[in-house]
């Protein structure tokens, strides 16, 4: 890990700590067991486009409106993490990442460490070509929230909790 990546990583984690969002690191090999400690049943998910990583058996990877409704945890890929804000970028996909990341009470975005960027302009620069290609994405920062009912409440229409999983490449553990 370069010094710069280390600094960005620390900044990302500090931003998440400010948001009260837990973050756990794992590796492709340990992915399933790590996820097990975080997710609660039933869990739904969409394809993770990361080498050496796939959704465990016990995750419903072909959700339907009915199973989505019942799920309490969701697992989807994040294409970028933004250190300054503790944000993750969630690309919309034809298999339903947008709704899967939105309906259940706990959302677990999975982010490769290498996809962390320092700031907003860098993230938006990376997103530009994708949007111009017709894609959509959500810059998500912490759980859904509202203050409309007289005090801050988490989980207004979307997840009440977010738990970020950072995927380190194998052999990169310190």
């Amino acid at each position: 890990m370069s010094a710069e990546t280390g600094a960005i990583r620390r900044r990302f984690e500090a931003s998440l700590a400010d948001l009260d969002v837990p973050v756990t690191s794992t590796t492709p090999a340990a992915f399933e067991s790590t996820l097990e400690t975080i997710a609660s049943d039933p869990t739904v998910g969409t394809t993770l486009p990361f080498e050496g990583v796939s959704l465990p058996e016990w995750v419903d990877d072909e959700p339907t409106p009915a199973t989505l409704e019942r799920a309490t945890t969701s697992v989807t890929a994040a294409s970028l993490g933004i250190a300054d804000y503790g944000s993750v970028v969630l690309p919309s996909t034809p298999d339903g990442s947008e709704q899967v990341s939105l309906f259940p009470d706990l959302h677990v975005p999975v982010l490769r460490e290498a996809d962390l960027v320092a700031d907003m302009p860098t993230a938006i620069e990376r997103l530009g070509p994708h949007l111009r290609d017709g894609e959509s994405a959500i810059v998500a920062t912490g759980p859904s929230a509202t203050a409309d009912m007289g005090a801050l409440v988490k989980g207004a229409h979307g997840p009440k909790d977010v738990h970020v999983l950072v995927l380190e490449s194998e052999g990169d553990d310190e």
Partner: protein
Amino acid sequence: MSGNAREQKADHIRHLLETEGDAVEANTLGFNDGRYESVADLEDYEGLKSEARAIKEDAIERLPALIDELTETVEANGGTVYIADDAADANRYIREVASEKEAERLVKSKSMTSEELEVNEALEADGVDVVETDLGEWVLQVADEAPSHIVAPAIHKSREEIARLFNEQFDPDEPLETAEELTMFARDRLGELIREADVGMTGANFITADSGSLMLVTSEGNARKSAVVPDTHVAVAGVEKIVPSVEDLAPFIELIGRSGTGQDITSYISLLTPPVDSPVVDIDDPDVAFADRDDDRDFHLVLIDNGRMAMREDDQLKETLYCIRCSACANTCGNFQSVGGHAFGGETYTGGIATGWEAGVHGQDSAAEFNDLCTGCSRCVEACPVEIDIPWINTVVRDRINRDGDAGRFEFVYDELVPDEEATGSIGLQKRLFGNYETLAKLGSATAPLSNWTAGLEPVRSLLERTAGIDRRRALPAFERETLVDWFEARGPRVSAADAEREAVLYPDTYTNYIDVDRGKAAVRVLEAMDVHVRIPAVSESGRAPLSQGMIATADAKASRVYAALAEHLDAGRDIVVIEPSDLAMFHREYEKLLPEASFERLRAGSYEVIEYVYGCLENGANGARLRTGDGGPAIAYHSHCQQRTMGVDRYTRAVFEALNYDVLESDVECCGMAGSFGYKQEYYELSMDVGDRLAEQFSAPEAKNRLVVASGTSCEDQLEDLLERDASHPVEVLDPRSRLR
């Protein structure tokens, strides 16, 4: 305004202060404090604002071309674009879409533009069930009320009121009480309604011409659901929302949440390029996997003109189109903090910039309803992420309203007494009186003390209240027989030009010259203690008074007179020293609009607030020990002045007090609420006092209550004296070597 109308207005404001004031105050103060904290974390806040401003300027400049580019992009993506001339046109199109879809229910995420269209009513007339899914908007839909804030529409409602409303309307098994219970109840109920919706409607905070993407700034997640659950998405947005490219979004993402609700970023920044790839959530097919669906989504982008293209051609209103509707100008505004958008707002929009929006989209009459509530304190100027001169837009619209209004009843009587440069139209007596304050002050001073004595008489106060709407609960300022200019002419300078370190012209503002002559004398002594050669020529009023009444032509003429009187001094290398911050703000801000650029720049570069000037002298080696210092001087409770803070010169007063060892406690309220003539007006007296109460509270706290009250502005001094029943002084009177203030 007639006496009757004034009373009605006062009643309406009083009612809102009582019913909604507390909730509005708590929320807006929270947002405003959050803004200060959040923008402080940015490395280059000012740079980011300038970048945002430049993007908007460029986009509005190129708007017709961007509309074409966007239309092509969206169509290439598979969507439809409709450009609606006005609200009726937009509504007709949206109703057609709904009827083609045979839509029974349409779910909406929050959109002020859709409020401008009144599209809900239009669809409901066709039998479509329209559901607001933003929790705040939904509360208002259930309560059948209008938004009071452009970002947080229901801030005027307390949790208790919402609980009462829900319990009455929905009669839940267990009565709802906490914010958590209310939120979960709304989430479930709205979740059901969204699931069965046929059409989703959103607004857009920004639209990118290069990709055809909508940027939606939300925290709840309802906009995400509204856009992807049904198969049809209608987005409504003013044409001004278009920016050239995706990359242009970055500064706005960083600024919008911080400026508005004081969040570094909201939970969700949706960047949707519709029709989106996400599958429809179809409850009629509950067991078909999302991955197996093959949806044919429908997307309609309805771009609204409704007066915007005309605003673009209007040199003064054009700036309004840069507005990103963050709400900072509302949250930072003293009057808004007290009374909220149900008084400070028009048909659709609320807060300081609403004047520009209402005048542009609904017409001047709607703006005229509330335009007076902008007192020109200018605290919103530095808060606006796109650097809009919001007070100026308010002034311009006020000027236009003055010119177009009905003829005032008493005006002809007073034309002779208070002549001004406004050629046409009608300006009520109240505005004329305050706008021509200099003439009044001259007359009052020449006839003092008789004028003061008569002004205090009950029949006179009653007449003033009836005819000019000057509230009789306010003490009127007492005029001095000997003006500052006369006093100084008789006394002469005590530091000769030959011995002086510098030469300064002390600007005799109307208040110092005719009413608070003592603070002028104190300023002379302070400057002379710094080895400054002082001159006090007779110079016209700065134009602040007429400008605050929307009398721009009169202000313009005054600006020329002031400049003519000062130009020679500037040429001679003399510094212009100003005691009253609102007059200095004229020289530093508004004169840019009233004088040729070179003249404006020269006066701005050569003029200083009096304590700023003292600071400069001390920095250049003047002996601070020749002033009264904190050793032996009083402990101070200090309120800076709104415009002084916007100019950023308040820091010098702080620095000088500190350098001279004063024990200072400073207020952090945005404005004292007096704002020149505002607090004298019968219809606004109570509002002014309510705004002032925030300041009074700070200065009545145990740690402040025995301190000497010090304020930099005339209005603030008067307001503090009324509120606290303690004397208030200007900082220069504290520093005066002869000062006895305790």
